[in-house]
């Protein structure tokens, strides 16, 4: 059903605090994830699966890959006459500051999205922590609580510098927010529901502090605003740098983990392509791997993730690696503990090896 209560606002301009070859010409939001997806697919799909039909997407400065992937939102059924996908200008330098996802200036400069809506709530999300969530249940809980804001969190299963933690007091009220989280903290998912009227008030009241994150700006007013919390029991995967990208991706090789992100009744949608089914030759050997359509496997693939259209020639091997779209691994080449970005050709009999503690990253091949 079309959501009658909420519109969506997604920020895709968090650019990460550590540089990476993977981010040379794309924002974190459009980094490929387990082959066929990109991180931005998750917030968009969560919105879509809740029937939200008006979504503002705040763009980073290097937005080419996002436009290419998202287009006018057709794959998420967001090419609507009523509502639809609105690509919004964001701070072109991104929000590199640790913990900052909802830059007040971006919210203020796009306030027409909120002014034009007639829905009572706005669901706001970043794109670096991915999950598959029944947003409607949370919208209902928010409505029942009467709070101004409901922040969604999980119990942190590990420490993380880039993620904010919620200090929660009586009746689930959020007392304060700290940057960085420890094991067992209430890890904020960069996802919250806010009353639209309240958001418009905040925009008016905090205009002069527009260089702050929304939550920094209102930190002193949590009592008055009534900031509530909601614990999400599912899987939330935070991706902020090469290390988290590699390890969180590899964890998806466990079907039990994978099943928590991909479920048939709440599908993750992505840009559709016409790649044929993956083709395995006789004598190929693939185990414990996630392999996308359009791959042609003659050699050996172990513990790896292959994007669309990767070829692994006979006698070549890929082990514990992430290989992105269109990479060709020629006869006898070996790739191990590596992330190989799009369109690289790994020549015959060469070796690319990282170690489990130091993953080798090969940037995108230039287009010839």
């Amino acid at each position, binding site marked *: 059903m079309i959501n009658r209560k909420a519109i969506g606002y997604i920020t895709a301009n968090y650019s990460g605090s550590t540089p990476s070859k993977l981010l040379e010409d794309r924002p974190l939001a459009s980094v490929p994830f*387990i*082959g*066929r*997806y990109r991180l931005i697919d998750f917030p968009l799909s969560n919105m879509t699966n809740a029937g939200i039909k008006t979504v503002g997407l705040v763009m980073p400065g290097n937005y080419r890959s996002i436009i290419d992937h998202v287009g006018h939102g*057709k*794959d998420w059924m967001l090419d609507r006459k009523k509502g639809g996908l609105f690509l919004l200008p964001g701070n072109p330098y991104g929000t590199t500051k640790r913990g900052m996802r909802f830059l007040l200036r971006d919210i203020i400069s796009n306030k027409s999205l909120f002014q034009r809506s007639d829905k009572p709530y706005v669901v706001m999300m970043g794109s670096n922590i991915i999950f598959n969530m029944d947003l409607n249940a949370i919208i209902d809980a928010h409505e029942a609580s009467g709070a101004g804001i409901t922040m969604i969190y999980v119990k942190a299963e590990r420490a993380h510098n880039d993620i904010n933690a919620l200090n929660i007091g009586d009746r689930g009220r959020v007392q304060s927010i700290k940057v960085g989280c420890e094991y067992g903290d209430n890890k904020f998912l960069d996802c919250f529901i806010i009353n639209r009227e309240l958001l418009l008030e905040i925009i008016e009241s905090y205009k002069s502090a527009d260089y702050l994150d929304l939550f920094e700006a209102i930190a002193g007013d949590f009592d008055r605003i009534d900031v509530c919390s909601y614990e999400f029991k599912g899987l939330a995967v935070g991706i902020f740098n090469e290390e988290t990208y590699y390890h969180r991706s590899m964890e998806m*090789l466990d*079907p039990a983990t*994978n099943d928590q992100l*991909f479920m048939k009744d709440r*599908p*993750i*949608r*992505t840009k*559709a*392509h*016409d790649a*044929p*089914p*993956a*083709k*395995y*030759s*006789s*004598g*190929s*050997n*693939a*185990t*414990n*791997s*996630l*392999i*996308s*359509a*359009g791959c*042609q*496997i003659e050699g050996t693939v172990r513990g790896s*993730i*292959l994007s669309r259209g990767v070829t692994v020639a006979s006698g070549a091997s890929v082990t514990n690696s992430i290989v992105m779209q269109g990479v060709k691994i020629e006869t006898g080449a070996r790739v191990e503990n590596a992330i190989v970005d799009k369109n690289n050709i790994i020549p015959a009999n060469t070796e690319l090896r990282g170690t489990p503690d130091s993953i080798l990253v090969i940037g995108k091949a230039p287009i010839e």
Partner: protein
Amino acid sequence: MSKKECIAMLLAGGQGSRLGALTSKIAKPAVSFGGKYRIIDFTLSNCANSGIDTVGVLTQYRPYRLHAYLGSGAAWDLDELGGGVSILPPYATQDGGAWYAGTADAVTQNLDYIKSHDPKYVLILSGDALYRMDYRAMLATHVDNNADLTVAVMPVPWEDASRFGILTADEDKRIQKFTEKPEKPDSNLASMGIYIFTADFLIKTLEEDALDQRSSHDFGGDIIPKALADGKRLFVHEYNGFWKDVGTIASYHETSMDLLGADPLFDLYDNETPIMSNDTTRPPHYIGPDGRVDDCLVSNGCKIMGTARHSILSTDAVVEERAIVEDSVLLPGAVVKSGAHVSRAILGENSIVEEGVKLGSVDITKDTAVVGNDVVIGKGE
């Protein structure tokens, strides 16, 4: 509406009764094929790859799944202003209504559709074969010959010729004779059931045929013989690529197997003329720690924990631990439970082969085993 050079009419109403359990609830053109495709994808992709932007799809038998699959035609870039895919089922009129009585009748009942596009030429197609063809080459043949009707033909082995509709042509490729399943063929050019008509001739011919009480309203049986008898300009367009009908269980299985191997007879990986489909967005497939995949096509959403050899695994098919699948086609969502052994079988959509069950035989003299859509095969069945 603006004038079109050539539009296509795709005959997709057939039941496909020879596909047995596979078409019990779904029209033949909508039957899954090749892992992620449905049979009609090949013809629609040919249209799109040939630059044809207007396709009327004539549907009749159990059309819901087919209609849903076609949608707006966007999956084949056929959501066009003033054209694109139009779904044309039988309809009622002030005088009642009737089912499509034959291939020609189906087109006759949609002459309004054809006239609204005012095309110069009309391409008649059926949606039940696997082939890649540039219809522009056939249209060029038709135009060069100043033909009224051009029939696409392919050479078949002489010993098989008596199973086909055979066309006999002279040196100029002008058709002299058409014989349905001749006992003693004098030509080995078989009709592929693909026709290009000059539109004015088609409209006139069909309007006459509609009034003919003795006609069974079939292109092969009535329209072509009559046009020949009337001395019209009928030519053949010879096609030499891969073409296979997937209308029987045996040919469906055999054609599926033709997609496999190092140098397949039909290459899904031809990027110049891609086969497009209305894809479901499912995650990449997973091959488990003990999974073994050898000479297979594997689609998104599959989970392979056991062994698959020389088989086609469609979207969301599952092969559990210690299960073996060989020389088989698993349609979308088919599940082979742990320890089961499936040989030379076609498992319908969302069918289940229970734990430890043995199904089918590698003996090629035996019939291919077929499990219908949603059927569960337990022990002792």
